[in-house]
């Protein structure tokens, strides 16, 4: 008994030290950077630019994170194939539609219609991939232990990666950005890359419509009911399997939109492009509190901002060279920290209260 107490105490002390060290490092780096002049000096405009690029990147994480969080909310399962839903929409719409629209010149003469068509194709592809995955790989495992669908999801992820590699090849595929979206706009005296404005505006629209859909519509209420108790939801006459499919479809639609926006920002797509954003978005969902839709949005935005502002701020302040290359380190350190110190996330509820 006393042996066990000592052990817990040791781990507790270690975690406290760990937490203190991280906080001290962040504060020290920030102070050193801002007041002691360590590393490059940036003007205010450059800091604002870091912030905006962080918000725009965070918007993409938020859109993808919604799929993780909604599926977790209804099935208590981490769908690690979600990054592939994102990739499938982006790559298919680029190869089958965007390339032709751009080559024919239609993309530059009618950018809005072109992007809408591309997005429609991306959403359709992502939803189809998601529904197939759910129906074939996940539904038969609905009553299996929780580890089983998790492993299956990883398998499904590999399957889709190499499926699309086989279809479209392993080269980087350029995503054509219409002329109208190249360059910058000046809004409120601040310069914004046009694509970033489109990303943020689209994300806000998508988030608000999703929130209203979940809160107000009959289907949205059914999704919430199924998330709470599948048996009782069935007693109400709710078709549980169909509701789960709808949830997957909504998450995939968001991922499809994110795929097109990703193409606009990074100007290329690739069969492997779903992996890192998928893991980052998962981090964002956990950070915000997995299962919570506002949590996914908040987690995504915060992750994007911390990734963008963190390296120039406290990593450079610590005298680390090439700090911007370490943004992935920041993201995954955050995942570890959240899992250790606040597993329920920023606005999530304690996982222990959830029914498995």
């Amino acid at each position, binding site marked *: 008994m006393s042996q066990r107490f000592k052990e817990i105490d040791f781990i507790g002390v270690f975690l406290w030290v760990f937490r203190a060290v991280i906080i001290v490092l962040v504060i020290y780096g920030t102070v050193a950077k801002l007041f002691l002049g360590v590393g490059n000096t940036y003007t205010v405009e450059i800091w604002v630019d870091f912030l905006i690029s962080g918000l725009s990147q965070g918007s993409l994480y938020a859109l993808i994170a919604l799929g993780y969080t909604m599926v977790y909310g209804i099935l208590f399962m981490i769908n690690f194939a979600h990054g592939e839903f994102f990739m499938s929409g982006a790559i298919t719409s680029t190869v089958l539609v965007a390339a032709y629209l751009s080559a024919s010149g239609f993309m530059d003469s009618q950018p809005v219609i072109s992007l809408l068509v591309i997005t429609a194709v991306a959403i359709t592809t992502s939803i189809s991939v998601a529904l197939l995955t759910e129906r074939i790989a996940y539904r038969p495992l609905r009553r299996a232990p929780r580890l089983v669908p998790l492993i299956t999801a990883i398998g499904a992820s590999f399957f889709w990666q190499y499926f699309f590699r086989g279809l479209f090849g392993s080269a980087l595929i350029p995503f054509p950005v219409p002329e109208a979206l190249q360059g910058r706009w000046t809004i409120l005296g601040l310069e914004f890359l046009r694509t970033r404005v489109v990303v943020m505006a689209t994300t806000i629209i998508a988030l608000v419509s999703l929130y209203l859909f979940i809160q107000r519509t*009959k289907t949205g*209420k*059914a999704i*919430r*009911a199924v998330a*709470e*108790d599948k*048996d*009782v*939801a*069935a*007693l*109400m*006459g*709710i*078709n*549980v399997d169909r509701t789960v499919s709808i949830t997957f479809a909504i998450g995939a639609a968001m991922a499809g939109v994110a795929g097109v926006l990703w193409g606009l920002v990074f100007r290329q797509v690739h069969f492997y492009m779903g992996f890192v954003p998928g893991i980052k978005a998962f981090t964002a969902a956990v950070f915000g509190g997995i299962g919570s839709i506002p949590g996914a949005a908040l987690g995504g935005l915060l992750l994007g901002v911390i990734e963008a502002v963190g390296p120039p701020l406290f990593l450079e302040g610590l005298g680390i060279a090439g700090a911007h290359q370490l943004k992935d380190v920041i993201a995954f350190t955050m995942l570890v920290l959240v899992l250790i110190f606040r597993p329920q996330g920023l606005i999530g509820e304690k996982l222990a209260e959830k029914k498995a």
Partner: protein
Amino acid sequence: MALLEINNLHAYYGNIHALKGISLTVEEGEIVSLIGGNGAGKTTTLRSISGLIPPKPGAITLGGEDLSQYKAHHLVGKGVAMVPEGRGVFAKLTVLENLEMGAFHRTDKEGIASDLEKIYKLFPRLAERKKQLAGTMSGGEQQMLAMGRAMMSRPNLLLLDEPSMGLAPVLVEAIFDTVTEINKTGTTVLLVEQNAHMALQVAHRGYVLQTGAIVLSDSAKELQRNPMVQKAYLGIE
């Protein structure tokens, strides 16, 4: 023809033989109580009727129709509503949203609105708390909500699983009064209870379930007088 007929129903949980061939009938307009101790198979019986445990073909018929061909979510459309054990309200939905879920399969907006008014009249407490999250209400209020939600589907047959569980005696009385009231408006009730005293007071007929088999069936009055029932379930020596 009886409204609900159960014929030689078996159910298994893994290796456990939970229902060993029970048979019972519920006539239109009746309140029938199924009493028995913990683990007797009462909840299993209700879960089989509502399709949460798939029954064997022919074992359960409703108005002559075999229920085994339907999934759980079809049954509410057949006129069967269930108030599950532990009430099963959706804690994170509001009271109003919970009631709307009860009418999920219905499309008649006016009918739903007028039924909502009826439920609010039956349970004025729910009207006061429309916008409140169901999880923040007391056990008694949640029981009212679960019953109101079931009534929102306009059931012919209402299945009640342990409505008295965890409630103060005065609330238990109120809940059973409501059961009688609901029955008077034409809804048939199959009631499962450990509180045999209350269950037999409101019921017309009763069945006694012991370790997965029906050991007694009679009118509620006769069961109340039965020495075995008195000793085992009513606490009368």
